[in-house]
């Protein structure tokens, strides 16, 4: 034994000691536990917790892990699961990620998660480890991760701190995903001063598995071995533990532990391949990734979900830093680690695969039926707890809720008096200014740093409305004469914080509707939903009102659209000082397409195709990009939500794609029709000639953000069939122009003409000019 471990051993707090000096003072408040929470821990244990137990309760009962403020609200997602969705949900909320059945023996798992605060402190590593964490969640379900998306929010594009945060976040998302070999197929980027001191980094991962291969986080079968594998445990991300350490070890001159984690994507790539080989050989009975709360979370969740007991020798955990004490090991958030439950019979085969991939694997414990999770440190018992009390029976709060005092004033200040462009010339300059504004400008400075091709199944990627990948693998080809599957899945994420500030219920539904519409625009049928709820402090009743309204909006919206919420993540305490960020629920929608070759892209490439606008355009500028860019104004009401209309629109887009009636389609959202036209033209090779319908104001026509709309390019030969379809289904479809290869411009007849070259320069130069 080295001298340092001898020293540690003598200082370690044991169950025996805790029974003896049950009244010893403990730094539970510094660890974020409330008086009543600490009292409950004592009640559960019948004594004071050991410092290791205190460390475990403090992380497991934190807001982040226990969902103590959000649980009562999130319950609605389960209660309101649409009937039509029940039989596709193979695994619902509560596991690492939900799993949905997509037919042909395939299943899909997907989830979005935040890594906001670390990305502010160390943008590159914070964002990188955010990607790493969500990928492990997907892997844990038994799936091969097949794509990622990222939803990003930064302060003003020209703010000096954005120049620090954005390039780091982008290189972090990029380098981690690229190095794992996962195509990045979509996401979003938005700028607003609300995020200056608190950027948002939300990452989504999707994985594919066979329906009979789902893995769950449970430790089943007494005698089974508990294996910790992957990277060694270091002192990463245990800011909280330093409180404990300093309380007991200050005299020893303990160094401060870093609050940020550094990721090793190469280690994760190897871990993924190693796990997939282990899964294919069917060698685990349960598996859990180590994310937030590290070993505390993995051991308690596995034990709580299985036979019920587990005994761990914590000193067997391989360490990167030999000076770590048990409390720190339990709280460490070192990346690229997994925990598996393996029967003794399978153990040697399991270890052999780990060896092949050069992955460190160590048996650190065993499953039992004691109903207790116990841990020893060099033979001394330091933990003895009922695991459910950590994993599932944490505190639950009904936080006070109050509508913000300024909500009525905000909604009443509708901005109808804001000066609007009246002449063709003014409309033209408005169009140019909008398209060059950071929120609407070309994002390829960012997305060109992401590999979208790797794995060879990417059918659509950014800037398309949704990313789409083919679902196929070697096993499929073997079973189908060497042919790849035609099945595809589509994914889109959306969120609009201004809409949500104006009306959190409607704003969240608008985000849901937009992601849903984006998926349908590509020809895929929306199937399931994930969400990342980025809000301020739950202790602020006004924030809690926004939160509860948003959750209610999502739950009701999903029920109405007939697609279930399968999982997600809550990120509270997004604030600068005491100012919360604008409420930012980000919705991810997954869709399915039977035949990827029928996908609908956004590019206008087809000379002479007729341009149709689907849906109704109203005078709706509350929370709009126009009000924000041209007037710096936020007020009024967001656009009206009509989910039945969204469903109808989606039906038409999906059927038209399947029947070959449309060759291009693009959803209308921020910036309205003009922006959609510009994006489709710049993506393709043709210009458009557009006619403003007689009874419509050109400004409203071009820039309103009414929901439930899309533009489509219809071949002349299919025009009758297409319009018949819309008429039969009662979807308003207005012919507004024609694609024209000779007219290399957007020409709005009678108003203005904007050459595509000029448009492209304005659109494409904004981000490079800012970020180099």
């Amino acid at each position, binding site marked *: 034994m080295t001298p340092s471990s001898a020293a540690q051993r003598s200082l370690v707090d044991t169950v025996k000691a805790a029974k003896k000096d049950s009244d010893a003072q403990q730094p539970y408040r510094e660890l974020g536990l409330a008086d009543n929470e600490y009292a409950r821990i004592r009640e559960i244990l019948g004594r004071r917790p050991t410092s290791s137990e205190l460390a475990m309760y403090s992380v497991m009962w934190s807001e982040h892990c226990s969902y103590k403020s959000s649980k009562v609200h999130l319950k609605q997602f389960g209660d309101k699961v649409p009937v039509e969705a029940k039989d596709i949900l193979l695994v619902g909320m509560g596991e690492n990620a939900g799993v949905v059945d997509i037919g042909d023996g395939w299943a899909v798992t997907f989830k979005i998660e935040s890594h906001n605060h670390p990305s502010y402190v160390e943008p590159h590593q914070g964002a990188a480890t955010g990607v790493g964490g969500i990928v492990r969640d997907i892997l844990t379900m038994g799936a091969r991760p097949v794509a990622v998306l990222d939803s990003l929010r930064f302060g003003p594009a020209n703010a000096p701190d954005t120049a620090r945060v954005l390039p780091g976040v982008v290189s972090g998302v990029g380098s981690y995903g690229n190095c794992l070999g996962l195509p990045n197929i979509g996401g979003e980027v938005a700028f607003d001063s609300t995020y200056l001191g608190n950027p948002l980094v939300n990452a989504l991962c999707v994985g594919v598995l066979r329906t009979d291969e789902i893995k769950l986080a449970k430790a089943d079968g007494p005698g089974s071995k508990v294996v910790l594998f992957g990277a060694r445990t270091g002192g990463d991300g245990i800011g909280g533990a330093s409180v404990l350490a300093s309380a007991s070890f200050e005299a020893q001159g303990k160094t401060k532990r870093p609050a940020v984690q550094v990721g090793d994507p190469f280690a994760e790539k190897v871990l993924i391949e190693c796990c997939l080989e282990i899964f294919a050989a069917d060698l685990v009975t349960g598996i859990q990734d180590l994310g937030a709360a590290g070993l505390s979370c993995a051991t308690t969740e596995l034990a709580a979900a299985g036979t019920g007991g587990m005994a761990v020798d914590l000193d067997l955990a391989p360490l990167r830093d030999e000076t770590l004490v048990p409390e720190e090991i339990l709280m460490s958030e070192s990346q690229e680690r997994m925990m598996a439950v393996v029967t003794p019979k399978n153990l040697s085969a399991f270890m052999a695969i780990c060896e092949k991939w*050069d992955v460190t694997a160590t048996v650190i414990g065993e499953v039992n039926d004691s109903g207790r999770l116990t841990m020893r440190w060099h033979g001394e018992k330091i933990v003895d707890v009922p695991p459910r009390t950590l994993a599932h029976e944490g505190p639950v709060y009904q936080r006070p809720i109050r509508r913000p005092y300024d909500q009525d004033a905000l909604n009443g200040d509708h901005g109808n008096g804001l000066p609007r462009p009246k002449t063709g010339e003014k409309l033209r300059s408005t169009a140019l200014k909008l398209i060059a504004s950071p929120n609407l400008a070309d994002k390829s400075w960012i997305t060109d740093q992401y590999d979208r*091709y790797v*794995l060879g199944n990417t059918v659509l990627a950014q800037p398309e409305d949704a990313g789409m990948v083919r679902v196929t693998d070697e096993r499929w080809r073997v079973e189908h004469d060497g042919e790849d599957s035609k099945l595809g899945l589509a994914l889109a994420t959306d969120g609009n914080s201004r809409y949500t500030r104006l009306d959190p219920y409607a704003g969240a539904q608008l985000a849901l509707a937009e992601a849903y519409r984006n998926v349908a625009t590509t020809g895929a049928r929306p199937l399931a939903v994930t969400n990342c709820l980025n809000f301020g402090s739950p202790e602020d009743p006004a924030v809690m009102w926004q939160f509860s309204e948003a959750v209610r909006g999502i739950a009701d919206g999903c029920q109405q659209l007939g697609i279930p919420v399968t999982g997600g993540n809550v990120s509270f305490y997004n604030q600068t000082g005491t100012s919360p960020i604008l409420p930012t629920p980000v919705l991810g929608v997954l869709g399915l397409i039977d035949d990827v070759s029928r996908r609908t892209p956004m590019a206008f490439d087809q000379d002479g195709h007729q341009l149709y606008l689907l849906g109704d355009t109203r005078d709706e500028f509350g929370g709009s990009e126009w009000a924000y860019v041209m007037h710096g104004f936020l007020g009024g009401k967001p656009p009206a939500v009509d989910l039945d209309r969204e469903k109808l629109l989606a039906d038409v887009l999906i059927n038209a794609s399947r029947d070959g009636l449309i060759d291009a389609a693009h959803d209308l959202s921020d910036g309205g029709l003009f922006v959609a036209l510009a994006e489709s033209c710049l993506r393709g090779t043709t210009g458009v000639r557009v006619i403003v319908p007689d009874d419509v104001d050109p400004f409203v026509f071009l820039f309103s953000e009414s929901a439930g709309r899309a533009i489509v390019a219809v071949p002349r030969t299919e025009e009758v069939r297409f319009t018949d379809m819309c008429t039969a289904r009662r979807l308003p479809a207005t012919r507004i122009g024609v694609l024209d290869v000779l007219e290399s411009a957007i020409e709005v007849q009678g108003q203005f003409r904007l050459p595509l070259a000029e448009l492209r320069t304005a659109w494409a130069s904004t981000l490079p000019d800012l970020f180099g």
Partner: protein
Amino acid sequence: MALSKYRVGVVTFPGSLDDRDALRAVRLAGAEPVPLWHGEKWLSDVVAVILPGGFSYGDYLRAGAIARFSPAMQSVIDGARNGMPVLGICNGFQVLCEAHLLPGALIRNDHRKFVCRDQRLRIENTETAWTNQYEAGQEIVVPLKNGEGGYVADPATLDALEADGRVVARYLGDNPNGSYRAIAGITNEAGNVVGLMPHPEHAVEELTGPSTDGLAFFTSVLQKLVGIPA
């Protein structure tokens, strides 16, 4: 003669990423794709080898620096010296340079960012084992994606490469990574070893690539093996 009897190997190193894509391209070209593991010396009777893209060993030190020492590479190096066709794509190109099968080196892109985009190239040498199905001067579009894709070598080496016609492909339009003389790919003197920074294996299917221009790299090697002159 049926082409598919030809076994073309793709080496997977820890951290290889585009190995599956390379295997798919081999299959679509009509050969039999054979996955090879970096830890095995035995090349499973393949007649040609592809070193795929990715980040072998994380590329932390220098791209390709560690992979070159693997057992499989020892056999690949021997094979290459004896005329076996070897194609290194992206990370594979870096490995070939580190292994001194090709001259020069690849360094961090001059703009210091990873770049993924559809790249126009001109095929400059159609005599190699991997490019004989292209026409001289043919322009193609294939994906490019790299962080360390800047090709560098001393002026004498560059001049020699040019003089011998060993520049296989050159970037057209903006130089995407600062490569000297816009070099995208080179070959050895014998023309059996080719290193290429862009990714032809991502341009073999209409559905998933910007074009199918990349397929000819994989059919070229079959023509070479069958012995039909290009």
